[in-house]
């Protein structure tokens, strides 16, 4: 049985009725142009602002799980990097729920500023702290909205590598929304392409070589780079 079973998710005006199954130990990338419904699908799975449809994680309904249990089932990292109060980086990570924060601080190389206030960090550093918050409870399903945005090229690679390791070695299910097709093609086990609030293609990395990319994004690969369709 799949780790994540989502059925009949729907957010009126943003996400058409969508069902989805995702296996344990996989890294899935949602790709699609702006406004295609990637964030809405992540919201719908996490039960944010909608209760249409249903979600099961290993047979358990995460939407009904109380705050003491929920972060171990599913966590969500939003595209917003906003932190409303000046907590320290480690206090921000602890807001994610109970559990050790030591390992995730080491994984994302946060030792140097774990005790600094979040408002004194750069956007990239803050992004890593907030990702650590979502990963610290070791959720069975981690949903991350644009995790590599604001990160420098080295950290984009390091983060994607780390998410892959979480999937392949710890058996966690990682689903991210991403704009970088090259990163997605390099690290993802599965690509789900969205357009106008619905899933239009679903497959492996070879999806990037198919004509559907040109149809949806209006780009094609020429001379080793993504270029507007000729």
């Amino acid at each position, binding site marked *: 049985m799949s780790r994540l079973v989502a059925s009949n998710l729907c957010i009126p005006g943003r996400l058409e009725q969508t069902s989805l199954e995702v296996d344990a130990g996989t890294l899935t990338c949602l790709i699609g142009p702006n406004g295609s419904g990637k964030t809405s699908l992540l*919201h719908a799975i*996490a*039960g*944010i*602002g909608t209760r249409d449809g249903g979600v099961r994680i290993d047979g358990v309904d995460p939407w009904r*799980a*109380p*705050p003491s*249990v*929920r*972060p171990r089932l*599913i*966590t*969500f990292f*939003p595209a*917003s990097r*906003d*932190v*409303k*109060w*000046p*907590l*320290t980086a480690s*206090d*921000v990570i602890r*807001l*994610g*729920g109970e559990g050790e924060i030591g390992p995730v601080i080491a994984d994302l190389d946060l030792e140097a500023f774990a005790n600094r*206030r979040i408002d004194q960090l750069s956007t990239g550093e803050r992004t890593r702290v*907030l990702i650590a*918050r979502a990963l610290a409870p070791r959720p069975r399903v981690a*949903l991350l909205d644009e995790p590599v945005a604001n990160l420098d090229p080295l950290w984009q690679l390091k983060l994607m590598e780390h998410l892959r390791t979480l999937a392949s070695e710890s058996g966690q299910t990682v689903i991210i929304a991403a704009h970088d097709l090259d990163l997605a093609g390099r690290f993802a086990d599965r690509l789900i392409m969205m357009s106008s609030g619905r899933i239009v293609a679903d497959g492996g990395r070879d999806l990037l070589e198919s004509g559907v990319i040109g149809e949806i994004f209006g780009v094609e690969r020429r001379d080793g780079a993504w270029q507007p369709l000729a």
Partner: protein
Amino acid sequence: MKTWLALAALLMAAALLSLVLPWDALGDLFARDRQLGWAVLVELRLPRMLLALTYGAMLGAAGAAVQALFANPLASPDLTGTTSGAALGAVVTAYLLGFSAPIALSIGSVIGALSALLLLLVLAGPRAETGTLLLAGLAISALAGALTTLALALAPSPFAFYDAYDWLLGSLVDRSLNQAAFAAIPAVVVILLLSRLRGALDSLTLGDEVAQSLGHDVARLRIWVVVLTAIGVGACVAIAGAIGFIGLVAPTFARRLTGGHPGQAIIPAALIGGALLLAADLMVRLAPLGRTLPIGVVTALLGAPFFLWLVVHMRWRLGR
């Protein structure tokens, strides 16, 4: 732990001082007539101390909860119009509807406070920017103030203005133990209930989306904070009038003790708020002016400069 003990000790000291100061008159009385001394202590000073302690604590806790909810350090019951709304509710109940029993005043006050808070949510939105929040609060305060004056002007009693003046500016004087209990009991219950929401309020630090993904029902949380704050502040205003700035000052200091966590600051803010209002009341009693100042005037005189400092500090931090 040390901070908690220090805060509790501070509060106890303020409460004890509030009972015995000024000592001259009380000592004199005890020397002449022991029974009369006790009567003054139990029937005059004890209710006043209890009222100051619980009203201050209520303002501190309500300030902390509302600031956490709006994610804004300038949200407080007075600046956002909650206390003015409560005062309007009490004035309408007492002078236009003609009910003066404490329970009627409390209900009127709570309805007033609730209306003001709901209006604020509608006008400013749930995650208001500072400017919008303060403007909406100002508008609600102004409206409630004008309506209060109107209600007093239309009141059948020709002495309504004179009668309501002291109470409107906040006063802890000459309240009975029974009256104090009408404020203190709801205040204590509300503070404890608000403190149960601390985890959810802390999670709002990361925004509504994350709080929801962590399993907190943000819409229900908002309703709880608004209703509890209205009940607690309303009950206190009905007995002791509108007292400002404690709800702004206490949470700011409390968050320094909780590493910035807005929800965990609720109980420390209550302890600090209680100590602050006790201290302000002591100043009222000990000030060598020959007459009693309304306590709301004292908290405003001390709180307004703090408010200005907070505004400048925020401007400086935002780099504008």
